């Protein structure tokens, strides 16, 4: 008998914690045997249905409801909807979409807006209406300003590391691109010189640079979907104004300006921002400053007993790397 009759039993089950009974529909038998057994194709399912209906935890549905349930099975099997992995199911307005009973995560996305997410519990034979309201994404299209502090390390043995202060920067972000302006300065960057004095004794001339930097930046935020931790990389071009002083206590401020000069500067950076909220974040960053041209760095030589030390022109290229971080506010 089994050889001729295929009992089609469709079982639907849900993994939801809230799932109720196992849903069962018993379909008619298909008789592939002799015509004398045709009467069994409907009488046996009726008997099975009656028996199953008495069992706790099993809910037997009418055969006419089966088309709806089968639609859901088809959808499940095509992979259009999966309880774990999100798949694109269409674009809004989506008038109707069938899912299995249970818990589903619904995600609605639009470029420039924050993703809408909701866990939706759908009972059997029920309809749920969803009206997602998308909020403009403050990370993808936003302005921010802030300040940062960096440890500035020159790639030159004669120049000492110092603190680079970035008291203000401004960025505008659109999608994955970010453009910005920033101002930074580093004061009291020592570059002392070991020299011979007019009376033939070695001494150290105390020297210092004051740096003022202006840069225009363009950054890429490659992982647009990331919201809390946002990496970025970028380049900048700008100007560096450098003032070179020697310590001279004979002057009021104790500093004698030797030379000031302005040169082009290129900068590359990688960093990551941590957004505690839509309005506040902190960031960590590593930078490399490349000075395309050499800067003047006058040195002093003794002219003998009867003269002050003479200034002799010299030039040097000083590139820097910097590491630091700061805070920023979005608006």
């Amino acid at each position, binding site marked *: 008998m089994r050889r001729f009759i295929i009992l089609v039993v469709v079982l639907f089950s849900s993994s939801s914690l809230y799932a109720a009974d196992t849903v069962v529909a018993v379909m008619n038998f298909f008789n592939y045997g002799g015509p004398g057994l045709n009467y069994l194709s409907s009488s046996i399912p009726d008997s099975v249905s009656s028996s199953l209906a008495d069992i706790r935890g099993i809910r037997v549905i009418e055969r006419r409801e089966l088309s709806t349930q089968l639609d859901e099975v088809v959808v499940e099997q095509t992979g259009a909807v999966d309880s774990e992995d999100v798949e694109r199911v269409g674009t809004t307005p989506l008038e109707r979409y069938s899912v299995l009973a249970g818990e589903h995560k619904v995600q609605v996305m639009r470029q420039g807006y924050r993703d809408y997410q909701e866990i939706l519990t759908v009972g059997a034979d029920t309809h749920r209406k969803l009206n997602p309201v998308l909020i403009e994404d403050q990370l993808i299209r936003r302005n921010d300003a802030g300040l940062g502090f960096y440890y500035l390390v020159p790639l030159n043995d004669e120049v000492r590391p110092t603190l680079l202060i970035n008291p203000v920067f401004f960025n505008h972000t659109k999608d994955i691109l970010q453009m910005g302006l920033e101002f930074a300065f580093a004061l009291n960057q020592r570059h002392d010189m070991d020299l011979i*004095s007019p009376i033939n004794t070695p001494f150290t*001339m105390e020297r210092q640079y004051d740096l003022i930097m202006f840069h225009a930046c363009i950054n890429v935020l490659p992982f647009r979907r990331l919201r809390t931790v946002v990496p970025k990389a970028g380049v900048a071009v700008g100007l560096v104004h450098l003032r070179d002083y020697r310590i001279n206590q004979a002057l009021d401020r104790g500093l004698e300006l030797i030379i000031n000069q302005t040169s082009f500067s290129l900068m590359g950076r990688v960093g990551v921002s941590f957004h505690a909220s839509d309005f506040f974040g902190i960031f960590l960053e590593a930078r490399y400053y490349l000075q395309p041209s050499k800067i003047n760095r006058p040195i002093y030589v003794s*002219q*003998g007993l009867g003269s002050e030390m003479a200034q002799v022109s010299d030039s040097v290229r000083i590139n820097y790397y910097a590491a630091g971080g700061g805070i920023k506010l979005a608006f």
Partner: protein
Amino acid sequence: MRRYVLNLISLLLLGIAFALYSLGCELLEEPETPIFADTDLMDASYSAGQFYFSPSWDVEYLVLGIFQNSIVTTGKRITNMNDMMGGSCTGLSGFNRGQVAEASLYTYSDASGYFIIGSPYDPSGKMYWAVWGFNADWVIISSSEQTTTTFP
């Protein structure tokens, strides 16, 4: 009576004129000038085989230079160092802050730009000398006027 008054006025005018003349003489008196421009004047003198000078507190290093010709400077540089015959400076034996004995001088070498250690210098005849001082940053901040002395 009138003559008496006129004489009195004339006497008064003469007194005023004399006072103005005396004052003018004082103003016209040549001031002491340090050998280097834009430096403080340092008092310096020679007496009985000793050079005396009084550097200010911020002078760290001192040089005493004795020249065979008048000292010529441009800004803070002596342009005729080839005329410097001897002297002494901070760090050398016998040089005290404020006083140097004539017997503690060294011969100056223009070739090396420094004194020849172990070669004493004994000035004789009419010489020109001055003292100048550097601060800790090797800036000349103080100098004496040029003094002419005839040594025995």
